[in-house]
């Protein structure tokens, strides 16, 4: 199973990455507090599947990547998405023309690598068909 998670993942977060590999968004839930816990914090939470839909809370199109490798991929859009369950998730927005990006737009999770890499990640695409490039 260690091949399906990034090297910085831990046994504690394995269920998250197992979910990604299987095309599901699994998030930590604290049953005693009746609240989602993100990023994962203290122990004593269970992993539950979430809907994978949400709204863009903020976005930014990166024109200068952190290293030369990523510069070859061209501009890409990072974002915070607030899932319908109320969790804020850092991610990429894909399949959306830059002029159509908007705070509040409805998006839905996909599970695919970025930048030609191997590791699948949760990325988000617009729900409305009109927003596609």
């Amino acid at each position, binding site marked *: 199973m260690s091949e399906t998670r*990034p090297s*910085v*993942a831990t046994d504690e*977060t394995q269920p998250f990455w197992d979910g990604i590999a299987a095309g599901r968004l699994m998030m930590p839930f604290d049953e005693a507090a009746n609240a989602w816990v*993100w*990023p994962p914090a203290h122990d004593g939470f269970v992993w539950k599947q979430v809907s994978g839909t949400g709204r863009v*809370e*903020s*976005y*930014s*199109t*990166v*024109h*200068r*990547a*952190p*290293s*030369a490798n*990523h510069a070859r991929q061209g501009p*890409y859009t*990072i*974002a*915070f998405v607030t899932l319908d369950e109320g969790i*804020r*998730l*850092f*991610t*990429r927005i894909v399949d959306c023309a*830059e002029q159509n990006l908007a*705070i509040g737009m409805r998006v839905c999770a996909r599970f695919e690598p*970025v*930048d030609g890499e191997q*590791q699948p*990640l949760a990325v988000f695409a617009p729900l409305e068909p009109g927003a596609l490039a």
Partner: protein
Amino acid sequence: MSGKVNIAGIAELPQGKSQWPSPMAFHETLVKAALDDAGSDLTEVDVLFTVEPRADPYLVHAIALAERLRIQPEFTWSFTSGGCVPITMLQAAHDLIAAGRARTAVIVAADLPLTSVSRSKYVENLAQVGPIHPEFEAPYHPPVPGMFALVAQAYLAATGQDERALMQVALHDREMAARHPNAHMRAPMDAEAYSASRLIATPLRLLDCAPVSNGGGAVVLTRDGGSGVKVRLKGSGSATSQMHLTAARSLTQFDAGLSLQSAMKAAGVTMADLDLINIYDCFTIAMLVNLEDMGVSPRGQAASDFAAGRFGPAGELAINTHGGLLSHGHPARAGGMGNLIEAIVQLRGLAGDRQVADCEVAAAHGMAGVFASHATCVLAREEA
């Protein structure tokens, strides 16, 4: 807080592309110059605090510096607190002297990101071991400016402003830096130059970002002695929010205000008493958000206050008369030292044509990560 500690010496050299044979040579020069300024010398030093430079890793950098200087101060520590570190070191050194545990402290925050590694490598390393969550943010390859850009986008939308609000900060800092002989970026900047600078991560342009600078400085604190003008640490305060933006309670409001309130309470002053405040502005958005979170301007109004000249040396409350991180410079882990040194220079009345008239009380602020934590100190001038 005890009034028996004097901020007695400072040293700062030109920031930017200055070349040094080694980071240690730079540190040695700053230490000796600050001690000289304080009328002291290496034999008196029993506290040596440093931030470990990105350019020069050791097991304990401060001890390596002590070795270089051939001294063995009792308290020789290196600190990690992001951009808060000049103020956290100042507080810790002050408290040791005030408690009677030490008599002469040297704090050094200096770094040479342009000298030891290439600038592009520095930027790449910063995104890997910087304020980005290694598991849940880093895999998406955000550059550090991208994280601030996310705050900027949300802030501008929430306050109904456009990028011209960011521009006001860039213009202010550049105008101030033009008057500072040590500033990294001094070439005049107008609205056209700002708008022409290339996009880094929307809405942030190159001129919304502090440069990568060699630089930093040193400060000496001593037990009080003799007469004349003294510079006192009247109080300081911190605030801790989160390490990563994913965990923040909001993308547009953070806790700079809590650290300022804590510092002013410890110092026994209010905002009305401040003649100057130097705010940590690694990006233009950091200035706008921190300034409004501090309550200096109402929400959404900081940019128009800058445009109205409210924050120049002759304005209602002077801000970043040295040019801030944006134009005075951002020397990697030493970012924020310029804020502290300028506060001291102003209180001494030695700021030349940047001088704030009757500058009696000055605050300096530092911030770690992407609004992760804050530290603020309130300094005052006293005639002993």
